């Protein structure tokens, strides 16, 4: 079911900017506002957010996680820490991780 919806109507997850836009929707932003916000933070157009070619380059340059792994690239918690900083939001698991390390970063 989820695959059909993602292909037909979804943003595309970490293949594009789907996870980033989703984080803003989860803060209560409507989809248009969420897309504008993320595009502004990434320095790209709203149209580019669903373009996997453009977003691969952007995600690699910002090191915020991509579908295919690369040596020394961020994934998991490291990628989320960079995403939290990029979008200027608090991600609960990132805050928990920082608290465990006793660091304020």
């Amino acid at each position: 079911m989820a695959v059909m919806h993602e292909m037909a109507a979804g943003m595309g997850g970490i293949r594009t900017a789907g996870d980033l836009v989703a984080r803003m929707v989860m803060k209560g932003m409507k989809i248009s506002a969420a897309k504008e916000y993320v595009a502004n933070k990434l320095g790209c157009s709203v149209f580019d957010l669903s373009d996997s070619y453009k977003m691969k380059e952007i995600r690699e340059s910002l090191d915020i996680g991509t579908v295919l792994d690369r040596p020394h690239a961020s994934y998991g918690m490291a990628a989320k820490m960079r995403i939290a900083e990029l979008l200027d939001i608090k991600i609960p698991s990132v805050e928990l991780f920082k608290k465990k390390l006793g660091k304020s970063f």
Partner: protein
Amino acid sequence: MEKFFTRMGDGEGVWMSKEEIKNDILAGMEDAVVKGKSQPMGQDEIEHLVDILTMPQKNVSVERGNEGVVTFDAGTLKLPVRCAIPVDRSTALLIHERVLCSDTMELCNTDYSYKAIKNIVPEEAMAMEHAQMNCIMPIFYGAMPNMGQYTKPDGPVDNWATLLPEGKIKEAMVAQEEAVELCKNDMIFIGSAMAEAGTCGIQFDTSGASGDADALAALEAAKVLSRKYPNLSITMGMANEFHLGMHGKLKFEGERIAGQYPAKQVKSVEAAGAHSFGAVINTNSSKSFAWNLSRSLTYAKEATRVADIPVLVNVGMGVGGIPLTNTSPTDATTRAAKAMLEIGKADGL
């Protein structure tokens, strides 16, 4: 006369003319307008829906620019449990993230009820912490209020479903009020544990499944959690296009819960401090896909028109116009997704 392949509400394939499809669209819409007091779709929207339903492609998709975010209720039940693929839940999450392009996912337990999870919440919290270390996408934790589980013999409260037919109305109302407190407290306990474990969000799925008291328990729990954990995203999925008045007199923030349709349900969810609303419109398996989708769209549009928070319409098995079958046909599913975003103006699914 040209016929187009479409579906009935139970998933059976049928051939219908454009005129038959349009008539069913109008009839489904009328049902939502009359019963749900929703505004009808405009003529251009009706024509657009006819176009979607008569497209020759097997599967369709939104036009560029109309993409929304996709969530997945009970996501980690699908691969390891329903499909019997022997992967751990954390592996299932990574498959969804890296292979299936999920925007978000949901960690959940096979026994998808908050009452059952109370017994194993430390283990669920540990699973969430580990999942969060590896995943990039947002991960919810979700379950259902399922307030009926608090009734005898499974729980301590008298069963209102047996009291009501016996004419014991007052006793049934008292029993539901007792169950609300138990259910609400469990959801707050589990939600808190998962928030402390770093979950990106909490989902209350099928809120209202046991009636208006069930919905109240979820709304009260969401209200507490939203204030206790400001960074925790809370999403509330409904069980029905209206809250059944099993109690009938319960209110949340001054509004009666019984009889609420999506446009009113979303305002109660907003008042609880939740961040997104999952509208649910149930499929009538005896009607056509066109009838069901049109009816669902009309309700969803009314909710998106008045909502201040994102509306993520439930478009799953037997809801949102989708046929009532476990293996959902891709032709119907993709058409429903396209229609909900382009016509329904949903923020996602």
